[in-house]
């Protein structure tokens, strides 16, 4: 396996503010790496640094073996990027946007034509080539953005919240595209807020308050000791009127956290007090479960908030 993205103790400060604090991670070729974290936790800053747009204050980073400090210009020729906000020109047509990015990435006329044809086929945007980008729907805008981001056949693509605000069908279609490209050996670094998207990723990193606090496959994260503190059990409480019961469960001794999941409650309870819980809710069905990815992140976040207090 070859490491495509490497960050080694990367720290980025803006004056007094530390936006990225001592982050180390490696992403292998063909991987889809999911990067999660609340807004303002440093996701976009890390991407910008990895693309060579921001010089790190400390640490080093490599993309395709190139140093992010020294080879910034060269890195950008091999990297694709799609910003969270639609970053294309709404007054230009789809074809003009694609042609512009082909030009900006320095593709010659022949190669540009070839690649335009390829990305058209991949994204299915061919019927809209003459339409103004501003008149496309959200899903098609994202496909156009992806087409522009991969026009120069980059080995790595950074996607910053690519599916924010688009409908589930378009979301699924975009992910299918990513899997198709990843099968061809393209490496993806995707930030998202959606847990279902995170679960599609091969590996996931979670950044909170500028620090990378967890990284691994979804299964690894679910078994993380910090997410399953000793002496506790994560349970699913299936009960009538779960929403009304939530406050009661939260108020009980020995329940560390509780939240609604569909028609049931997920709770992290101290194992030796499970009996009390069962006695309190005799009609409910209580079963031990594996934590979901969201459970893991919430538990980790609470622990850090507790520690900070």
């Amino acid at each position, binding site marked *: 396996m070859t490491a495509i993205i490497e960050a080694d103790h990367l720290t980025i400060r803006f004056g007094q503010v530390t936006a990225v604090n001592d982050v180390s991670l490696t992403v292998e070729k063909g991987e889809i790496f999911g990067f999660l974290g609340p807004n303002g936790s440093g996701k976009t800053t890390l991407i910008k640094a990895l693309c060579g*747009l921001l010089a790190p204050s400390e640490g080093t980073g490599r993309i395709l073996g190139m140093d992010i400090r020294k080879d910034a210009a060269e890195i950008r020729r091999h990297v694709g990027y799609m910003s969270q906000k639609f970053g294309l020109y709404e007054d*230009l047509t789809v074809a003009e946007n694609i042609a*512009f990015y082909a030009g*900006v990435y320095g593709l010659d006329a022949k190669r540009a034509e070839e690649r335009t044809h390829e990305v058209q086929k991949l994204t299915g945007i061919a019927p809209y080539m003459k339409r103004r980008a501003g008149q496309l729907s959200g899903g098609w805008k994202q496909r156009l953005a992806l087409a522009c981001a991969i026009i120069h056949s980059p080995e790595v693509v950074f996607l910053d919240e690519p599916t924010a605000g688009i409908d589930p069908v378009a979301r699924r279609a975009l992910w299918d595209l990513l899997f198709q490209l990843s099968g061809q050996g393209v490496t993806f670094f995707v930030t998202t807020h959606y847990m279902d998207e995170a679960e599609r990723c091969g590996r996931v990193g979670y950044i909170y308050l500028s620090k990378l606090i967890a990284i691994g496959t979804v299964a690894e994260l679910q078994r993380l000791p910090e997410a399953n503190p000793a002496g506790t059990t994560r349970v699913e409480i299936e009960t009538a009127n779960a929403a009304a019961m939530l406050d009661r469960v939260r108020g009980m001794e020995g329940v560390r956290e509780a939240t609604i999941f569909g028609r049931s409650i997920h709770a992290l309870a101290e194992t030796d007090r499970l009996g009390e819980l069962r006695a309190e809710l005799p009609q409910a069905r209580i079963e031990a479960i594996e934590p979901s990815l969201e459970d893991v992140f919430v538990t980790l976040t609470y622990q850090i908030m507790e520690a900070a207090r």
Partner: protein
Amino acid sequence: MKALFPTLFRGLVPVCRKEFLHIVRDPGTLVFALALPILQLFLFGFAVDTNIRQVATVVLDQSQTQESRRLLESFAGSDVFALRSYVTSPDAMYEAIRSGKARAGIRIPYDYARRLQDGTGATVLVLVDGSDSTVAAQTISTATGVALQQSLLRVLPDGTMPVEVRPSVLYNPATRSANFFVPGLVAILLQVMTILLIALSLVRERERGTLEQLEMTPVAPLGLMVGKMIPYGVLAFGELCAILAVMRVVFLVPVHGNVLLLLALSLPFLLTVLGLGLMISTKAKTQAEAFQLSMGTILPSVFLSGYIFLIENMPLPFQWISHLIPATYYIRILRGIVLRGAGMADLWREAVILTVMGCAAILLAARMFVKSRQ
């Protein structure tokens, strides 16, 4: 070394092409941008006239004699005084000036004709509204001239003057103020339009998020800057031609020098204002901010560039500032070529200074752009 040039300006051609597309896609803005300076040229060109003519004058003729009427005729004949109204009391005369109905008043006393005959010296009171200093100065000098002429005619009945000054004004023989002001106005209008258009173009990209996407590509800062400058430079050059045509055809300002030289020497000025616009765009976060900053460049260019006030009459610190204003040099070039028929030999200094300023502005803008994303 060979690869340095393409690297430094990477992305120039696609950015330039795209920017032209933006311009043609938005014909409303284009027409507005081109028509507004022309409209302003019409407005200001006609409004700014420092030649004082037909000053509304109120007359109190208490003498009512042949002599007093002859005096009033010579006032009226000067083209400066327009005898609009006649009153019968001093109070009415003051009232007319205070209310603004008249800017000057002429009062001929009862004994005007008698004292003229006696040779004891007749006095005529000329009241001038001093709230406009230009009007006041010119009316007073004309009034003095009228009195002097009347006196001399009495002393020298045959009308030959012992000494006569024959002023001959070079380059602007009719001393038409349009000839003086309109070329300067060309510089101001061109500057405002150009700075505003290019500054808004980059800030718009920042506001809409397209810049964020563009920054992640291999486009070099200079490629982006110069790529944006070329389309707006072409636009501004077209506008310059239109403005010059209006100046010549509508305001009848003759161009004494070489028009091609004028166009050629306009390029360094365009370079400078485009660079200035780009510098503004790296500082401004929103289009509104860019608009305000662009407007902020107008006042110094109007007041400290020699467009209205002579630089030589300014306090020394302001003279230094005027040397930093690009419009100062371009107005010299414009007036030199248009009014005096000056050539390259007279204006090369201005051209060199503007070129240096322009290149510095672009490099500085590129540097500020790189800094702004840190």
